[in-house]
C-alpha cells in the first residue's frame, strides 16, 4: 500500500521536499505494522531498512547496554542504511505494537545520491539526529570504520 504525499510532508524528515520530490519518495515507502517485542534491526548486521515511526514506542540498544527510547511520530531509526559502513550501530526493538514507514536502504541511497536536491534536504534533517545519537555508539562506530578500512 502506497503512502500519500500529505502524510509524508507532515513528517519532519520530508517537510522540505516539494510535491514532485515527495511523490518520488512516496513510491519507495512501505507502511509496516509491528508487534510488541518485534526486532526491526540487529546491531552489526548489514543495514537494509530505514524506518520512520508513525505510531508506537521503540528502543534502540547499543554495545555495553546503552539504550534510548523513541516515542514520537516522525522519529527515525536505521540511518546506518545511508551512512558508511552500512551496518546497524544499534538493535531496534518495538516496545509496543505500532506502525512504521520502511524504506529499502539501497533504494533510499539511490534516491539521495541520485538527486542532489532531495539528498541535501533529507541529509540536513538526518545529520543533526546522527550527531545527537553519536555518544551512544561512537566507540563502536570508530571500530566498525577501522574494520572497514583494514578490509
Amino acid at each position: 500500500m502506497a503512502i500519500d504525499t500529505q502524510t509524508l510532508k507532515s513528517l519532519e524528515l520530508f517537510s522540505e521536499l516539494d510535491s514532485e520530490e515527495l511523490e518520488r519518495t512516496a513510491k519507495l515507502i512501505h507502511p509496516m505494522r509491528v508487534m510488541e517485542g518485534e526486532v526491526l534491526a540487529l546491531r552489526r548486521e548489514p543495514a537494509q531498512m530505514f524506518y520512520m515511526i508513525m505510531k508506537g514506542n521503540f528502543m534502540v540498544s547499543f554495545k555495553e547496554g546503552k539504550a534510548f527510547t523513541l516515542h514520537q511520530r516522525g522519529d527515525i531509526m536505521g540511518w546506518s542504511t545511508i551512512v558508511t559502513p552500512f551496518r546497524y550501530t544499534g538493535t531496534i526493538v518495538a516496545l509496543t505494537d505500532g506502525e512504521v514507514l520502511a524504506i529499502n536502504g539501497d533504494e533510499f541511497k539511490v534516491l539521495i545520491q541520485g538527486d542532489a536536491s532531495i539528498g541535501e534536504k533529507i541529509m540536513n534533517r538526518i545529520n543533526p539526529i546522527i550527531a545527537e545519537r553519536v555518544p551512544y555508539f561512537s566507540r563502536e562506530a570508530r571500530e566498525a570504520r577501522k574494520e572497514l578500512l583494514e578490509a
Partner: protein
Amino acid sequence: MTGMEAISAHNGWAISAIGVTIVFTGLTVLSLTISQLHKVLAFMERKKSDSQKRAEGAKEIDVSDIIIPGDMKETAREYKMIIDRMDAPFSLPRLLELSEKCGLNRPYSNLNDLIGSGLIEPDGEGYYRWKGPDNP
C-alpha cells in the same frame, strides 16, 4: 554396435555407477554439512556472547530466587525488585532481558509504561535510573 554390447564396450555401466555415486556423495556430504552448520554457528554465537559479557564485566545477576507473587499486580514493584539487583544507573536492555528471564508479563510494553510514567528516567549517558518511590 548397439544394445548391451555397446554399453559394456564403452564402460557404460561403470561410468553410470560411479557417476550416480559421485552425485549422491556430493549432495549427501553437502546435506550433512548444512545440517550441522546452524549448530556450529549457534555454538560460536553463544561462546562469543559469553566472552563479550565477560569482557564487558557484566555481572551475572541471579534472579532465580525472585518469585513474583500472584497477588503483586503492580508492575512497578516487580521491576523495582529487579532493578535493585542491578548497578545504578542500569542498562535498559539488560532490565528487559532480566524481566523476560523472570517471566514477567509483557515486559516490553510494561517497560514502556514505566518510562512513560517517569518511574524510569534516562541519565543522558545511555543508562537509566529508578525515579519512583523506594517501595512502590
